């Protein structure tokens, strides 16, 4: 079936999921519309319980939607779930490999589950153990592997069917920085070598910022922002400049700064006043500002510019800090 929506790798229309818990209906995902083109690397960013994983589970056919529809890799997730499954790879939050099994057995069987014959599956498994540095572990029992080794095995399992579209659910949770960097090496290699479309969920701001081409910010089951990290920061947060001047010159300084900045705040210290606000292109604005203040005879005692993070974006969108929410949840 050729559907008009297959031009997108992922296309959703009002995709919705409710859960009923103790007779209360929880709207985990509230009618989201998502479009993802082939070859994109998109991150779903949001606090725990925002609906990121629920969305991902619907897209991977693990969870049927309550309402709405989605087409993934050219097939409908409700009426052609098996087709979707055969075309995608999925790396979940848990251990993909069974603990009592051997590494190589699990990989070969995974290929068989995708309908590959034994010899094709075996050669694909060897290819992957080689590229993921698992060759020495092929005969080991999964339960004896370290956390990092298990994660590499999970990636290998998710790639056995050479999917054009790969989903990763919180791929780096609980990883140390070294293993996290390693994971991203593999993901980036996949993109470079095979142009794989990648969709992942994360609550790590730095990760979404550094690697994703596009970030969908999800909160309370809704997509509240959708753009590149750079654009989100520029439009929703902006650079923050803070200058401290002699108390006597506060009025002159405020007048100068007011022409350029937004959301200005002033705080009085003993004999000093600190003025802070949001500025476009803060790194370039600060030297200009210092020069102007100098011309006006204002003595600047301290100056600071801070480039925004995605946390500032989240803060400006929701009034809450994503970092704090993640810490509370963890």
């Amino acid at each position: 079936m050729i559907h008009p929506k297959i031009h997108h790798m992922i296309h959703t229309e009002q995709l919705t999921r409710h859960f009923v818990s103790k007779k209360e209906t929880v709207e985990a995902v509230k009618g989201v519309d998502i479009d993802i083109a082939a070859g994109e690397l998109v991150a779903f960013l949001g606090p725990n319980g925002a609906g990121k994983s629920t969305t991902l589970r619907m897209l991977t056919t693990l969870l049927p939607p309550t309402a709405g529809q989605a087409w993934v890799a050219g097939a409908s997730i409700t009426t052609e779930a098996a087709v979707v499954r055969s075309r995608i790879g999925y790396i979940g939050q848990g251990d993909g490999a069974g603990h009592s099994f051997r590494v190589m057995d699990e990989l070969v069987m995974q290929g068989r589950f995708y309908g590959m014959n034994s010899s094709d599956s075996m050669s694909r498994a060897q290819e992957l153990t080689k590229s993921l540095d698992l060759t020495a572990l092929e005969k080991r029992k999964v339960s004896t592997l370290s956390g990092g080794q298990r994660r590499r095995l999970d990636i290998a399992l998710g790639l056995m069917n050479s999917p054009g579209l790969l989903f990763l659910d919180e791929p780096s949770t609980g990883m140390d920085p070294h293993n996290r960097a390693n994971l991203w090496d593999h993901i980036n290699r996949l993109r470079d070598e095979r142009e794989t479309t990648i969709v992942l969920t994360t609550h790590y701001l730095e990760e979404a910022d550094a690697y994703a081409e596009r970030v969908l910010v999800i909160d309370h089951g809704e997509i509240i922002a959708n753009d590149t990290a750079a654009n989100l920061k520029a439009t929703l947060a902006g650079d923050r400049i803070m200058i401290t001047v002699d108390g006597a010159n506060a009025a002159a300084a405020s007048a100068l700064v007011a022409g350029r900045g937004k959301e200005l705040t002033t705080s009085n210290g003993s004999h000093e006043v600190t003025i802070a606000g949001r500025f476009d292109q803060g790194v370039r604005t600060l030297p200009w500002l210092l020069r102007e203040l100098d011309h006006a005879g204002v003595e600047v005692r301290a100056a600071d510019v801070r480039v925004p993070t995605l946390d500032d974006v989240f803060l400006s969108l929701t009034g809450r800090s994503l970092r704090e929410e993640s810490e509370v949840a963890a």
Partner: protein
Amino acid sequence: MTTLVADTRAVFQREMSLVLRDPFSIIFSLVQPLVFLGLFGPLLAGSVDPAAINGASPLQWFLPGVIVMICLFGTSTTGSNLLFEITLGSYERVLATPLHRSAILIGKALKELAPLVVQAALVTLVSIPFGFTLYPVHVLAGLLLLGVFGVGMGAFSNALAIASRKREWMFWAVQQSLLFPLLILSGMMLPLDTGPQWIQVLSKFNPLTYIVDAERALFSGTFDNPAIGWAVLAAVLTCAAGLWVGVKQVGRSTT
């Protein structure tokens, strides 16, 4: 249909790799029925009136019961492995593959049945010197019947595992509180003929009763027993109902 067979084979092979890679588990699984036969058999022989079992060797009566019991224990506990896989995450990975949903259940149940064939063969062979008469064709038919029943039981067990995935203790609570009434009320271990009327009435509602009766008829070398027809019906119904409930549950297991 071809994918169902191929998928079932793949799931079965994955499960079997656990058994084949760990020979110790095979040895242990063989010792268990032997211990049971060796310890319970003599006790039963001493306490059962030979007239109640038509004057045959007590083994002829007791052995089929042991084999049905092995099947029941093996298939009714298979869900605990699934529960383990659900908790750790590997089951979700399997669900994300295009595997036929029934194949997941049938493959897992068949894995519990494969050792059964070996166990049954062993206890049967060991029993021959002690007066058991072997009717190979009838015994094979009996195992086939148990196979159909066992796939259903395994599917029920897996469905129970999925239903209790958020409260693991519930799996064992339900499994144990169903297993023993089913077992005792089937006349598997002790003849029910000498029991009170109400027990005999209850046993008529237990599908396992028909399976046990049919196995006894088959192991004593006859196909000419109405119990066999009822047992085939009971086995097919158990299998169909188990798979139906099981496949429904599989779809729910990720919510």
